[in-house]
């Protein structure tokens, strides 16, 4: 019940009592309440016109990085005796320093500026505005208004700088890049020997091969290097990512996907992203920095989810990926994933699986003191090794990632096939 209604009811009750009993003293009792109500109403602000602006110290942050928000509220209406400003913080962000709620007095034309610091986990956060409560002197009348002050903050997943990722999809695009195109032409890596053709530079003549033949000269042919289409699929299914006590491998998967996407885009490839969880989150393939930003924003908003439709990998929409392109699948993997992955391979895609190791992850916080846990861990480890071996036999490259190890070290060890020019220098 509002304060004014409460006081009004009391006042009317006293007046009614005065009428019924014909005693003027009841009216006397009601007079302080009437004075309170009338003065409250008379002093209520005539016109409420508030404007607000918001500034963020940075709009792209890494998880748990401090971001300072500065909010300025300007009163373009009549003077307000009491104004309670509550900046609406998107769920997930925490106030680290100072306060997002203030109680102030704002004269007409006056501004009030406050700043506070927030931080939060990976995600995309939208600031819509401020909840403002305007009171008269006695708070008899209260006005609740929403003042718009837009702002966006992206807490992006951390990106590890990966030097070079050696992938070899069957089909490449026409533009020059760093991925061997399985075709002869200009390049740096030896591809084969063919008969000399007019126009071949003299230094490309293979004198050793030419010496064996009296009829023709032979030239060395080098492998063309081009850019490729890469589709990164991030597995966000709840049942593969979530473990006991709220532990999740999903953030590791997201970090791996972000680092891989960054490295591949830096190499000039066309990269797309598919989030496979409650729904299919598809980021159209593209090149360059803008695409990097799109992918990082999509990964910032990625969440695990449970869906009956996407509970297994049968519904990966392969038509999104160009034929014979490279697919990088980031998932902790379960036994049921074997068949769909082999089907992808059978359709001509080059499949690389980056799999954060769920067994080691779970054992790392369960501890090894319990013999039952140890035994279960060993059984699960064997099952996983078996699954990975089966995938490798199906010509699917698998990176088994113990998440306690930095991801860049794993990539350096397993995927960093240095480009030919670098290897030539090293020789």
């Amino acid at each position, binding site marked *: 019940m509002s304060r004014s209604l409460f006081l009004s009811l009391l006042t009317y009750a006293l007046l009614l009592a005065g009428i019924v009993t014909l005693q003027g003293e009841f009216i*006397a009792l009601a007079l*302080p309440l009437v004075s309170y109500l009338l003065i409250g109403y008379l002093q209520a602000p005539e016109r409420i016109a508030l404007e607000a602006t918001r500034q963020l110290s940075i709009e792209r942050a890494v998880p748990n990085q401090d971001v300072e928000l500065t909010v300025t509220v300007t009163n373009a209406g009549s003077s307000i005796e009491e104004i309670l400003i509550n900046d609406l913080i998107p769920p997930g962000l925490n106030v680290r320093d100072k306060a997002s709620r203030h109680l102030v007095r704002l004269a007409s034309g006056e501004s009030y500026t406050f700043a506070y610091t927030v931080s939060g986990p990976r995600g995309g956060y939208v600031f819509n505005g401020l909840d403002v409560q305007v009171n008269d002197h006695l708070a008899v009348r209260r006005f609740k208004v929403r003042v718009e002050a837009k702002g966006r903050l992206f807490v992006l997943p951390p990106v590890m700088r990966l030097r070079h990722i050696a992938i070899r999809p069957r089909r490449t695009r026409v533009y020059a890049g760093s991925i061997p195109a399985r075709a002869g032409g200009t390049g740096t890596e030896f591809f084969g020997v063919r008969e000399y053709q007019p126009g071949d530079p003299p230094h490309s003549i293979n004198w050793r091969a030419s010496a064996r033949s009296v009829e023709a000269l032979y030239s060395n042919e080098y492998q063309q290097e081009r850019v490729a289409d890469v589709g990164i699929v991030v597995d966000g299914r709840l049942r593969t990512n979530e473990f006991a006590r709220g532990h999740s491998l999903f953030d590791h998967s997201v970090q791996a996907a972000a680092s891989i996407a960054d490295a591949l885009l830096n190499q000039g490839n066309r990269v797309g992203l598919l989030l496979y969880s409650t729904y299919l989150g598809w980021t159209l393939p593209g090149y360059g920095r803008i695409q990097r930003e799109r992918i990082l924003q999509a990964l910032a908003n990625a969440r695990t989810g449970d869906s009956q439709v996407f509970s297994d990998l049968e519904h990966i929409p392969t038509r999104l990926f160009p034929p014979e392109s490279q697919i990088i699948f980031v998932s902790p993997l379960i036994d049921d994933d074997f068949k769909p992955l082999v089907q992808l391979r059978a359709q001509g895609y080059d499949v690389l699986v980056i799999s954060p190791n769920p067994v080691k992850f779970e054992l790392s916080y369960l501890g090894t003191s319990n013999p039952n846990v140890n035994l279960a861990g060993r059984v699960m480890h064997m099952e996983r090794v078996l699954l990975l071996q089966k995938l490798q036999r199906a010509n699917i490259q698998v990176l088994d990632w113990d998440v306690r190890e930095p991801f860049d070290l794993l990539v350096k060890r397993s995927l960093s096939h240095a480009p030919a020019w670098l290897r030539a220098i090293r020789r």
Partner: protein
Amino acid sequence: MTTIALILSILLGNLSLAVGYRQGGAAGYSIWFLLLGALWLFTHFRKWYWFSSIALLVMIVAAAYGVWLGYPTVWMVLGAVGGLLGWDLSDFARRLGYAAPMDDTRTMERRHLERVGIVAALGLGLALLSIFLRFERLAFEVAVGLLILAVLGLTRLVIGLRK
């Protein structure tokens, strides 16, 4: 500052009612008003601010009952004014709880206490004036007519101000 004023208001209201009832010959009730005051303070410090509305209701009803029984009206009016002040300051203290440490709450407190003091003084003055200023007895029909007119006028004024 607000807390001190709140304590004084609660004391003023409940002591006035206690004294009024005592003077009226119902000394047994006085202790209940002191207990009510203590309970109100206890709930306030526990931040159970909703209790202030119940306390005000109880005090207004008690003051009205005292008036009906013919106890000294001045004490009853003082009880009602004390209850009103306590109710206002309790809600003000709740609102101050939303302020950030860097907000200038002292100035707000001072201004609020000034204004609510003026309102209380005005209400009390009018009430006392109405008690001591008496006209000759009016006919029953005229009195009822005037009161209905007052209620309607007040309602119309409140609706008008709300717009």
